[in-house]
């Protein structure tokens, strides 16, 4: 662009220079033509004066030796003036033909002067004097004729040259007018083209920067050249770079959010694990403490039963006591098992077995009594590597929720099967109830920590379950419809070497 501007300025300057030079040339030419005309007129005047001078001298000659004879000095002056006229002519003319004519004129003038000198100086008899005077007069007449011819020639030449000069001057004037009109228009047009050449790319750049500012980082400036092209390239590169940075920032933000989420989940899991560990410990203690009195009750019932063989009514009551004590002992043992499982490490697990153990516990739940349990367990279910206690906790949370969702009774279906999820082999556990269902707007929140719809709920159960499944690189999803029921789908990867 810089080069273009310089070239443009050079072109405009050149145009002005050429027009200026032409104006100077035109003025010089016109001036010369006028000068030529003036000179031609002067020549004409000069020759007319010369002719008058010759006639004066001729008159002097005629009047010589008469009463009207002019003073000799006057005659000399007239003749000298005549000679000066001829010499003056040489100042104006350089044309060979004219010079030749002037030479001839000068020679004739010299001859005339000589004859006049002769007439002035000679003293002789009358015929000789008359002859000399006649000769001088004749030469004077010849000179007059010669000058007259030259005047006629000059006049005709003057007319032609006057017309030519006037035409030339007129043409020059038209050319100057045209030039005075053309050069400003040319400069204006040129400047407009240049200005457009600058403002066009500027507008394009401004438009593009506005679009980039508006967030359209995919926009690219096209079609600009020179410095504007380089600027456009820089802006395009800047937009590209900006886009990359923003994408990087977005990725970082997502990663940060994920990390935060993971951190939070981990914290929750840790809290839950600690809580469960405490519950386990507590359960273990309670179970241990209850086992002894229950055993005593059982033993005492059995012993008393022997004593009450004759009392059927008492025996029946003792049998009830014995049965309930056994049941209570089973519960305490289950609690002990639960407490031990929360601290278990990962191992190869058959989920069907975990579910079966869980079903045993559930059958003692009062809420489960009005529920029909449907087990649809795949016998060929692949084993997975998992923490048994953790899985049990997950399943227990979901099943307890299902039971709560079916206060008036219902059907709880637990199914397992092998499944391929996103090219990952594993197993799916589906737990379906025919409960009240979960409204759509709550489905997204049920895995959030402390989200609960129950008055006595802690909002930890499903959150912990979600964390545990995540910890096992699995997935937990809910599918529910209000009034029809809810299904939890749990996917657990099979783990290396465990592919079914």
């Amino acid at each position, binding site marked *: 662009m810089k080069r273009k501007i310089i070239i443009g300025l050079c072109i405009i300057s050149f145009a002005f220079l050429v027009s200026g030079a032409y104006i100077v040339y035109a003025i010089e030419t016109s001036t010369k033509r006028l000068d030529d005309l003036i000179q031609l007129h002067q020549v004409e005047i000069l020759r007319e004066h010369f002719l008058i001078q010759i006639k004066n001298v001729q008159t002097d000659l005629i009047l010589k030796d008469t009463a009207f004879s002019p003073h000799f000095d006057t005659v000399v002056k007239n003749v000298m003036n005549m000679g000066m006229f001829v010499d003056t002519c040489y100042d104006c003319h350089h044309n060979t033909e004219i010079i030749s004519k002037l030479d001839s004129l000068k020679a004739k003038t010299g001859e005339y002067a000589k004859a006049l000198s002769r007439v002035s100086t*000679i*003293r002789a008899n009358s015929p000789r004097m008359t002859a000399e005077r006649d000769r001088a007069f004749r030469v004077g007449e010849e000179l007059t004729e010669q000058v007259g011819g030259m005047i006629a020639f000059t006049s005709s030449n003057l007319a032609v040259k006057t017309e030519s000069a006037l035409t030339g001057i007129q043409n020059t004037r038209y050319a100057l007018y045209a030039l005075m009109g053309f050069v400003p228009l040319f400069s204006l047009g040129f400047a407009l083209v240049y200005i457009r050449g600058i403002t066009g790319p500027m507008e394009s750049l401004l438009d593009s920067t506005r679009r980039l500012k508006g967030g359209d980082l995919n926009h690219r400036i096209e079609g600009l050249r020179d410095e504007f092209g380089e600027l456009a390239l820089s802006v395009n590169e800047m937009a590209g770079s900006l886009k990359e940075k923003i994408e990087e920032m977005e990725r970082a933000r997502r990663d940060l959010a994920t990390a935060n989420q993971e951190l939070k989940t981990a914290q929750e899991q840790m809290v839950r694990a600690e809580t469960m560990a405490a519950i386990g410990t507590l359960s273990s203690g309670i179970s241990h403490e209850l086992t002894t009195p229950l055993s005593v009750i059982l033993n005492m019932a059995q012993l008393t039963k022997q004593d009450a063989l004759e009392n059927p009514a008492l025996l029946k009551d003792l049998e009830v006591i014995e049965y309930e004590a056994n049941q209570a002992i089973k519960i305490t043992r289950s609690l002990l098992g639960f407490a031990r499982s929360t601290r278990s490490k990962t191992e190869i697990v058959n989920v069907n077995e975990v579910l079966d153990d869980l079903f045993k516990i559930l059958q003692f739940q009062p809420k489960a009594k009005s529920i029909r349990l449907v087990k649809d367990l795949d016998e060929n279910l692949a084993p997975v590597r998992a923490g048994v206690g953790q899985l049990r906790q997950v399943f227990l949370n979901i099943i307890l929720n299902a039971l709560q969702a079916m206060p008036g009774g219902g059907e709880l279906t637990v199914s397992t099967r092998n499944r391929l999820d996103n090219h990952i082999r594993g197993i799916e556990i589906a737990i379906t109830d025919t409960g009240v269902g979960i409204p759509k707007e709550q489905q997204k929140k049920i895995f959030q920590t402390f989200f609960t719809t129950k008055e006595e709920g802690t909002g930890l159960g499903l959150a912990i379950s979600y964390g545990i499944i995540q910890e096992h690189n699995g997935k937990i999803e809910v599918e529910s419809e209000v009034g029809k029921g809810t299904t939890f789908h749990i996917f657990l990867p099979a783990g290396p070497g465990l592919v079914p």
Partner: protein
Amino acid sequence: MGDPRGVGRFPRGAVDHLVKPLIVAFLCLAVLSGCAKKEPPPPPAAKKAEPVTLTIGLIPEQNIFKQLERYEPLAGYLSRKTGARVKLKVLPRYRNIIDNFRSSGLDGAFFGSFTYALAHNKLGVEVLARPVALDNTSTYFGLIFVRRDSGIRNLKGMKGKRFVFVDKATTAGYLLPLDYFHEGGVGDHRSYFKETYFSGTHEDSIYDVLNRKADIGAAKNTIFERLVLEDERVAKELVVLATSPRVPENGLAVRGDIDPSLTNLLKDSLLHMHEDPEGREVLKRFGALGFIETKDEEYDPVYRYARKIHLDLSTYNYKND
């Protein structure tokens, strides 16, 4: 005639019509270029004392206009050197130089030897200096000549012919022939010749014989020799029959009552002009090597010559008949 460039008959309307746009353009150019020249104002005219005018007469040695042309540079030089305005006045006849001294008051003149003798005798003028010719001579002598093909070889052969003198007031153009006639025993030359007349100039006398307007002529050798260089016919077709003794070349003589300082200045200028380049240039155009001081005694040959032919200069009628 006025300044030929100062007067124009170009129609005023046409000039305005054509020149106005040019004047505008000129003004623009002058403004743009910033180089408009301003003629410096003429210096205030210094009040100088009007220079003394010295009117110097010239005798028609040759064609009067040619004579003026020859002496103009010398007059200009003397004007510059002396501070006086040296003005030339050519005279149609030799005798006028005596008349003009009386009637017009000439201050001086380049006299021929005989006219000086007359003027010294009648007017009391004093000669200052005379030129030295290119052949290093400062004298001249008279010639009597005829056409080579005329057959005239002596006075006897001249009888009944046409004789052209120069002027009664010339040594070469009149005294010599008179002496020649006197020596040859011709008392009344008017009756001896068919026609005698005065051409007025040495040059015309020579050309009259050359062009057969006269049969015998008399003139001074310096003019004759100058014409020999200009026209080859002069040497080829004319033959000299007699010569006179040498007399001083035409010298500048001035009135005795002129300011002596100016006279001395004039004389010094002439005597030293060959010493400066400008003077040498003027001398070259004049056809001389320089000027030498001249005294009245140097004209003794003229006086003797006049006496020989019984001319009384104080009463001599120098007017041509």
